[in-house]
């Protein structure tokens, strides 16, 4: 009932292709994030789904209905904006009730539904306040209540948490996710914050200059990115080139300096050049030992940064610097130490054939 399908959507502004042939299906009840840097077209795509922007070509279906030509007010969507967009001249109650009033529902039904929505976001006692008398987090919850009170087919959120400070944002993430699951609402969530996207979503869409870079579950986006762009955008990635070697069961990547790193990846062909990457927490550091570490990449610790639960080690390897995230319970290491880098790297699927 609440699924969205985006069919071959393009948006052109003059000579600029804001969106290039976007195809996307959001499943019923799914929490889908659209992730990308500013200017990648993620907000434009959301505004086209909402009907605030008309696509240059393509179709949008919401809940099985072609809404491409429908204006916003006929689309049965809930929309939450980055700046909350609460109406400053109306109380919290009236902000939430506006949509129901426009539907000409009976007074007592309006009252019942508004209070129910406010209860869900724990704002019932503040119903008679003005938005200016609320904190940022409370304002955001009013915006949420205003969107869900109409029982929309889909909930669309445009960077709703980015105006909040960090602690509040984490609380709101939990609340938002809980609310979404309770209501089973199909949700599209636009953000530029990769942690937010990975932690909240059932699936993540990574956008790259008006096109979709990858759509997958968060774990796959992080561990098995489809391209260098996705690998770099959803986390820190250290990329390097090498030649695929080793047998099929234990593939290795031989680096230019003669050392080798175990790798994983699809369609690896021995003898082909490939690009692989590691993330800071994939690498284990050991004091370098000539006998046990023969053939493994070797580096020198440049700098150590303590963060409490983990420490970051900046390791210089062949004139480049690699960040390694490490729990402090391993062997003691300090700047200047020679270390061996023990890790399994991931070959970027997109680079295998291109090499």
């Amino acid at each position, binding site marked *: 009932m609440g699924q969205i399908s985006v069919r071959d959507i393009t948006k052109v502004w003059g000579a600029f292709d804001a969106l290039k042939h976007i195809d996307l299906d959001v499943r019923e009840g799914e929490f889908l994030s659209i992730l990308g840097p500013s200017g990648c077209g993620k907000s434009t795509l959301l505004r086209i789904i909402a009907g605030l922007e008309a696509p240059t070509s393509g179709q949008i279906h919401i809940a099985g209905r072609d809404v491409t030509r429908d204006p916003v*007010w*006929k689309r049965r969507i809930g929309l939450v*904006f980055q700046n909350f967009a*609460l*109406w*400053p*001249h109306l109380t919290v109650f009236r902000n939430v009730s506006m*949509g129901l009033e*426009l539907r000409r529902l009976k007074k007592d039904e309006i009252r019942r539904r508004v209070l129910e929505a406010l209860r869900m976001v724990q704002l019932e006692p503040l119903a008679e306040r003005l938005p200016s008398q609320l904190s940022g987090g409370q304002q955001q919850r009013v915006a949420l209540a205003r969107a869900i009170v*109409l029982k929309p087919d889909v909930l669309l959120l445009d960077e709703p948490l980015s105006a909040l400070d960090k602690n509040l944002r984490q609380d709101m993430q939990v609340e938002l996710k809980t609310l979404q699951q309770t209501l089973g609402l199909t949700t599209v969530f636009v953000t530029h914050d990769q942690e937010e996207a990975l932690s909240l979503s059932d699936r993540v869409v990574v956008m790259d200059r008006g096109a979709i870079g990858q759509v997958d579950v968060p774990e796959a986006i992080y561990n098995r990115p489809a391209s260098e762009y996705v690998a770099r955008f959803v986390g820190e990635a250290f990329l390097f080139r090498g030649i695929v070697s080793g047998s099929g069961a234990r593939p290795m990547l031989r680096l230019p300096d003669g050392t080798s790193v175990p790798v994983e990846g699809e369609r690896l062909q021995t003898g082909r050049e490939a690009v692989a990457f590691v993330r800071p927490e994939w690498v284990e550091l050991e004091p370098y030992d000539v006998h046990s570490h023969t053939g493994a990449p070797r580096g020198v610790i440049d700098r150590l940064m303590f963060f409490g639960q983990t420490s970051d080690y900046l390791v210089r390897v062949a004139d480049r610097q690699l960040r390694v995230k490490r729990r402090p319970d391993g062997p003691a290491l300090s700047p200047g130490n020679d270390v061996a880098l023990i890790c399994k790297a991931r070959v970027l699927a997109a680079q295998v054939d291109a090499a």
Partner: protein
Amino acid sequence: MHKTILGTTLWYLGTLAFYVFLLAPLAILVAVSFNPVAMVFPPQGFTLAWYGTILEKPDFLHAAFASTLLGVMTAVICTGFGVLAAIGLRRYDGPLKGPITSLLMAPLFIPAVIVALALFQILFMMGILNNIWTLVAAHVVVTIPYPVRNVMAQLEGFEGSLEEAALSVGATPRQALLRVTLPLLKASIIPSLIITFVLSWNNYTVSVFLASKDWVTLPLQLRAYLQYEYQPFVAAMSTMLIIASVVLLVLVDRTVGLGAMRKRG
């Protein structure tokens, strides 16, 4: 140290002199209006008799009625146009945006007497001079910059998403305008109404060209009266005009001030 004290003193003296020059004539006028004998200063006593005589001059009562009617019509029509123009100009982003804005602001820079003379010539040629509508139209023309500028300034700081949020809960663009945009624009609409009323109420330059004998405004009637006689009665009339303007301008200040506070809060 001495230097700054001297500077401050000069600054205060200058400011004082400025207000004395500005307000002294008005103070004298007000004082004279309570004077029982002819137009002399200082007053020889105190009386409200001249205010009573206003009621005995049908010309002035009619002029006060004409000015009030003219002021209200000008304020409503001008602010109405101004709000529509400002909203339109915010939404429209074509090549004519600049020229249209300049045109609406032009009466601020063109001397009113020139606008009035031009209007007089055209309306005379068209033969439609002798009615209140031409006078209202002329007053609207010279006061239109004020509401346009007020409303545009408020719209500048206006989040477009406020209207989009209304659309998203099912409001048509018209309902969004009525329920969200216009109520929020109150902070610039009310001052615009008052300012345009005051400007029209006090206007002499335009009215002198375009007022017909049936629609003589108060400033015109005062001027006409002064040509023949000079009595404290005129001072009483003028004092009432001053009081009306001051009261309305204080109102503007209050509404604008309140609007600004609400935005900050």
